């Protein structure tokens, strides 16, 4: 069974190719079947592989499939090879499964769009790349998948290319993530140069053999990889692209910019955890980055009007939790949160997509309202997703995963009290913006009439995800056990806080957020408005609304200088050297020509002068 692994990326690749080349001439039903089918098969296949993997674990807990040697120069021989262990297995299963659901959703959501087949081609290509990323046996192949998903993200954000705004958002996403990728590439060079391989497993072994804890090489390598992770996962300081990425079609946002691709950074760090253990400074940086991001993004989420942007900031914030978990050494918890997040965030986007389509592509939450009765299915699914996101204690998956992370922060040797407090504050914020969203959109007075109701292809995936958003949390213990096969367990220590206290505080934090949201947006909406329009509130609002002014800052620091210098130097200043030389030659020509007067006596004078000169040189030099 395991040797069919290569089909998992291959099928969507092939289907993407077919759709790209022949898609425009295929009927839309065929496109839908092929597009969604090409994901269904790998998803099923992956479940079977998972079953095989669990029932008969391969030797060493990992299965490697080498297809061919990709590049071969001297000792640099990365292969096209897949590596399946507990970590990648979980990731791939979740990715293919969620992808499948979202593809099904898309068959209805995108119906009638001019670029129907193009959409599925991109989506299939994305899944293929994502799976490649996750299964890659070496960092180069991982990088291939990494760039591939980045490309698909770009293509899908700018899917409706006729509006330049979408294109610009796509370009921004691509470029900002590529800033991180550049760092990551340099990290790859460093790793190969120092360790002589890019195979992840060999690399981790050699690194722990060769490098001391805290060795500058390890620090540099871990930091450079972190750069890539930060870009892809929209963490500080490269988080600015993700909110704009919401320009893409909603299924795209659900799949790429919430459930799967943006967590690639988390995967990368988990995959190369050995390096981070060698570089505790960087690991701490990961935790701090996560904590800072989750708070900043939480604040920003509070101020947004666009339903998708709220969700985008919440994604940034939730990935912040995952980084936070990685940073404190709770590797398994990070992956667990990835999984639950994939379910409930995809669910939220799908439900949001239903709302948006129902309201004629209305994105502004303040022009929604009262949809609880109009779109009950959407309301309930959204509510479940929202509760999971905010961490409704005991019954939602989000609660369990987040609870585990907070507990780890308190009980890890790498954790600190400050981090734990930040995590708790994040819970309050999450609960606050989530319920603000729910109350504004689904309660109150209807503002826009509903024009379109979703069909089964859109609702069934949402129901499935809603189910998972609740039940996935109960798998905490078996999940942790399974993860322990691939990732090290938490180094317990630190504050030694008991589970009960931690859970209680988290529950209270959730409740606090809920209550504030209820008070400010449902029972007493004027208060919310007043808070936003007070002097301090306005400044804060604008500041948070604009993502802490980071775009403004980057524009001035990077974008404008580059654009300006490119525009100013359009004609290539270097060329003026040569133009100058030709001018000089022409000038010489003009002056020299003045000697050709046509007058006989002048000519004779030159001969006389020339000979006098020659004589003078001959005699006196």
């Amino acid at each position, binding site marked *: 069974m395991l040797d069919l692994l290569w089909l998992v990326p291959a099928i969507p690749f092939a289907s993407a190719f077919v759709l790209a080349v022949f898609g425009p001439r295929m009927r839309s039903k065929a496109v839908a079947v092929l597009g969604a089918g090409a994901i269904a098969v790998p998803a099923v296949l992956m479940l079977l592989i998972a079953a095989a993997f669990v029932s008969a674990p391969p030797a060493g807990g990992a299965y490697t499939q080498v297809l061919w040697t990709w590049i071969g120069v001297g000792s640099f021989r990365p292969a096209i090879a897949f590596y399946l262990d507990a970590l990648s297995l979980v990731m791939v299963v979740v990715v293919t499964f969620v992808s499948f659901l979202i593809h099904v959703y898309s068959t209805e959501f995108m119906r009638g769009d001019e670029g129907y087949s193009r959409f599925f081609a991109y989506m299939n290509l994305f899944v293929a790349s994502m799976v490649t990323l996750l299964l890659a046996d070496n960092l180069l192949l991982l990088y291939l998948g990494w760039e591939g998903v980045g490309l698909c993200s770009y293509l899908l954000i700018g899917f409706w290319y006729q509006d330049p705004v979408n294109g610009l958002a796509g370009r921004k996403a691509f470029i900002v993530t590529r800033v991180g990728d550049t760092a990551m590439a340099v990290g790859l060079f460093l790793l190969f140069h120092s360790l002589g391989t890019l195979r992840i497993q060999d690399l981790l072994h050699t690194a722990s053999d060769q490098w001391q804890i805290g060795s500058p090489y390890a620090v540099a390598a871990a930091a450079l990889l972190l750069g890539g992770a930060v870009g892809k996962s929209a963490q500080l300081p490269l988080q600015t692209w993700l909110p704009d990425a919401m320009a893409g079609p909603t299924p795209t946002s659900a799949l790429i910019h919430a459930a799967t691709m943006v967590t690639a950074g988390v995967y990368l760090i988990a995959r190369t955890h050995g390096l981070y253990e060698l570089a505790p400074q960087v690991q701490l940086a990961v935790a701090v980055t996560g904590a800072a991001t989750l708070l900043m993004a939480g604040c920003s989420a509070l101020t947004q009007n666009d339903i998708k942007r709220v969700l985008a900031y919440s994604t940034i914030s939730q990935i912040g939790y995952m980084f936070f978990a990685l940073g404190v050494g709770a590797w398994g918890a990070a992956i667990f949160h990835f999984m639950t997040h994939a379910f409930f965030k995809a669910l939220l986007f799908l439900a949001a997509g239903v709302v948006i389509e129902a309201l004629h592509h209305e994105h502004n939450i303040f022009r929604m309202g009262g949809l609880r009765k109009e779109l009950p299915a959407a309301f309930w699914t959204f509510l479940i997703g929202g509760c999971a996101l905010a961490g409704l204690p005991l019954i939602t998956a989000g609660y369990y995963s987040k609870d585990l992370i907070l507990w780890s922060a308190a009980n890890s040797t790498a954790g600190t009290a400050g981090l734990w407090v930040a995590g708790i504050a994040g819970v309050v914020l999450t609960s606050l913006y989530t319920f603000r969203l729910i109350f504004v959109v689904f309660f109150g007075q209807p503002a826009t009439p509903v024009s379109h109701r979703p069909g089964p292809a859109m609702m069934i995936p949402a129901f499935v995800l809603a189910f998972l958003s609740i039940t996935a949390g109960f798998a905490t213990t078996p999940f942790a056990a399974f993860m322990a096969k691939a990732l090290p367990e938490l180094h317990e220590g630190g504050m030694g806080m008991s589970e009960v206290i931690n859970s209680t505080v988290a529950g209270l934090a959730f409740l606090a957020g809920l209550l504030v949201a209820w008070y400010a947006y449902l029972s007493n909406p004027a208060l919310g408005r007043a808070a936003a329009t007070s002097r301090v509130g306005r400044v804060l609002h604008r500041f948070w609304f604009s993502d802490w002014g980071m775009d403004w800052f980057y524009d001035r620091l990077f974008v404008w200088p580059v654009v300006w210098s490119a525009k100013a130097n359009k004609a290539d200043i270097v060329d003026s050297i040569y133009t100058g030389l030709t001018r000089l030659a022409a000038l010489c020509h003009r002056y020299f020509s003045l000697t050709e007067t*046509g*007058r006989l006596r002048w000519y004779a*004078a030159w001969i*006389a002068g020339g000979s006098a000169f020659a004589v003078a040189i001959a005699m006196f030099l």
Partner: protein
Amino acid sequence: MLPIRESFILAGILFTLGVIGVLARRNLVFILMSIEVMLNAAGLAFVVAGAQWRQPDGQVVFLFILAMAAAELSVGLALVLELYRQYKTLDTDVLSRMRG
């Protein structure tokens, strides 16, 4: 016995005078005459050099120069006539249609 050095200097002065004549005069006939002066100065130098080495060769060359000058002048005068026919002047400065 000819004073060699002084004679060469004399020839040089004569030659320079010829050059000045060529440069200063506009009239083609005078220019040709100045050229004659230059040629004869060269001839004088040959005679002096021959005398220095007690050889007749210098004087022989002078004869060559005379003959050659005649030949050159004959062509020159033909062109002088043509110049006058076309331009009604002997001023060489009119001959500057080609330049640049």
